């Protein structure tokens, strides 16, 4: 590292050979063409195969070309870039396929008749029928679960943020985290074991209780985040006026964070609305309309999808109904998500920054 060494450096140390800007696109197009070409020549039918061949060609091609023109460091940078892009595309493909097949196959039988009729007189293998009973069941079960879980979740979050000190709060925090990870089927088995104890028959509210267990930790977490965003000055300002703590929480803290809490609850509702496993164990499913969640088996949308798929022995009519119900369920979940995020965005300027 003497001066002499540096002086010997060629003058254009700042100038590296660079591939032109269009090089990655050209390599991508080339690999795609070769990938398809190989598949046609070898008579491969699966889209997955030529896609994989093209992806591998793209990564390897980029590396080889860049290593020759730009040197090994730039080649490594390029291979990382191309791998990251390939990973992104690899993930996009199944997700696009999922959305596309749900929409394109779902619209086949999705109409007003489908939404307003049950499966009462129709065998699973025949065409016709609808999801009215499943919608009723889903709304009731999810609604009851929300009525149980939302207050408990919000109150727990208030406890953790406003009062929580010491071992109890630490234990609650830890177990809320743990509860978030409970598989839905385990929550179902828990309620089932209670029902076995009292020899109860399946009914809608049993499903609600399992769903409520799944919902609570999600509500606690999101509410906690929102309450923590409320500036302490606000609380102190209220307390300094002589307002008791509980009224400060009710009148100052909660209204300030109401938008965020609502968002969190709606996202939690969206999550449990798609749960199948506990409903399968506890509510059983029913092809008839049962609007009483406290007695007798009920249907629910996710369970309906599963049963149309599993119990129909490959009948096309049942698959069509499953797709249509999936589309309905996804639409419901997505609308909840979008509205919830809309509320969050609409309320955001008031709570922060």
């Amino acid at each position, binding site marked *: 590292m003497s001066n002499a060494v540096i002086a010997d450096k060629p003058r254009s140390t*700042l100038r*590296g050979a660079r591939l032109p800007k269009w090089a990655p696109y050209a390599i991508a197009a080339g690999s795609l063409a070769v990938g398809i070409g190989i598949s046609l020549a070898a008579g491969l039918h699966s889209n997955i195969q030529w896609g994989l061949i093209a992806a591998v060609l793209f990564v390897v091609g980029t590396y080889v070309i860049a290593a020759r023109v730009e040197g090994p*460091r730039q080649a490594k940078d390029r291979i990382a870039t191309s791998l990251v892009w390939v990973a992104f595309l690899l993930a996009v493909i199944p997700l696009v396929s999922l959305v596309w097949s749900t929409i394109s196959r779902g619209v086949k039988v999705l109409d007003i008749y489908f939404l307003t009729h049950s499966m009462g007189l129709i065998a699973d293998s025949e065409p016709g029928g609808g999801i009215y009973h499943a919608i009723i069941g889903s709304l009731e079960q999810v609604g009851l679960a929300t009525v149980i879980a939302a207050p408990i979740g919000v109150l727990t979050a208030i406890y953790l943020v406003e009062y929580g000190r010491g071992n109890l709060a630490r234990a609650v925090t830890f177990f809320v985290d743990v509860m978030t990870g409970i598989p839905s089927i385990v929550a179902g088995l828990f309620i089932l074991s209670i029902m076995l104890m009292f020899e109860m028959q399946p009914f809608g509210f049993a499903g609600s209780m399992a769903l409520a267990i799944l919902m609570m930790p999600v509500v606690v977490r999101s509410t906690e985040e929102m309450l923590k965003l409320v500036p302490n000055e606000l609380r102190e300002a209220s307390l300094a006026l002589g307002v008791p703590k509980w009224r400060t929480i009710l009148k100052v803290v909660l209204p300030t964070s109401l938008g965020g809490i609502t968002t969190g609850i709606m996202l939690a509702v969206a999550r449990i609305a798609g749960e199948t496993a506990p409903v399968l164990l506890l509510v059983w499913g029913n092809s008839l309309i049962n609007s009483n969640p406290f007695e007798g088996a009920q249907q629910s949308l996710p369970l309906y999808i599963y049963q149309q798929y599993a119990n129909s022995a490959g009948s096309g009519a049942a698959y069509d109904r499953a797709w249509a119900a999936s589309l309905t369920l996804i639409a419901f979940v997505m609308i909840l998500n979008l509205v919830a995020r809309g509320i969050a965005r609409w309320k955001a300027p008031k709570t922060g920054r």
Partner: protein
Amino acid sequence: MAKRIDVSGLTAYYGSHKAIDDISMTVEPRSVTAFIGPSGCGKSTFLRTLNRMHEVTPGGRVEGKVLLDDEDLYGHGIDPVSVRREVGMVFQRPNPFPTMSIFDNVAAGLRLNGSYKKSELADVVEKSLKGANLWNEVKDRLNKPGSGLSGGQQQRLCIARAIAVEPNVLLMDEPCSALDPISTLAIEDLIGELKERFTIVIVTHNMQQAARVSDRTAFFNLSAVGQPGKLIEIDETERIFSNPSVQATEDYISGRFG
């Protein structure tokens, strides 16, 4: 190895906001040039254009020329990565890599090029740490994490890391603003030694510091908040602090604003 910097007509933007406007100056090799001026006057932005770090900020873009011994840093076909190897930088807050040992921090830049033997690497690390006046304090714990050092030591570690790759120019962005007076003194002494080997440009808020360490001083100012920063004047440090040619400089230095 120290190179001359020749800036002409340099304008830098953040998105549509013009941060500095039409700056031209020459920085002499083997000297310390200090940039002073009120907050927001664009002196740090200007510093970052000298090693193409400005364009790392989203929306950052530059017009004009920066010649490093006759080669335009913003010319066609110039690789910004190579530019940053030749123009090193020390930041406001010491930023050693938290997961690396002291040794690995200093060797980080060298390892990027890969072709070093172990003994060679150890030699360069020792030489750089000595160059940064840190060797005696850390020679017994080279394998400990760099984040365990004091703030002043961390900053000298960052300087060692920057000089280990033998850059032509060393840019320092308020290197002492996060340090206590004793550590500041150590860095200032170090700057005096390093200027024998490097071209040094230092941004500072502390006018005494500029007066102490620099040979030439550039004063930046902005006409109003939101307006782009401009170079008001650049001259021998002694002249700037005793008899500046522009009234605004004198006002700033004598503490009448800023």
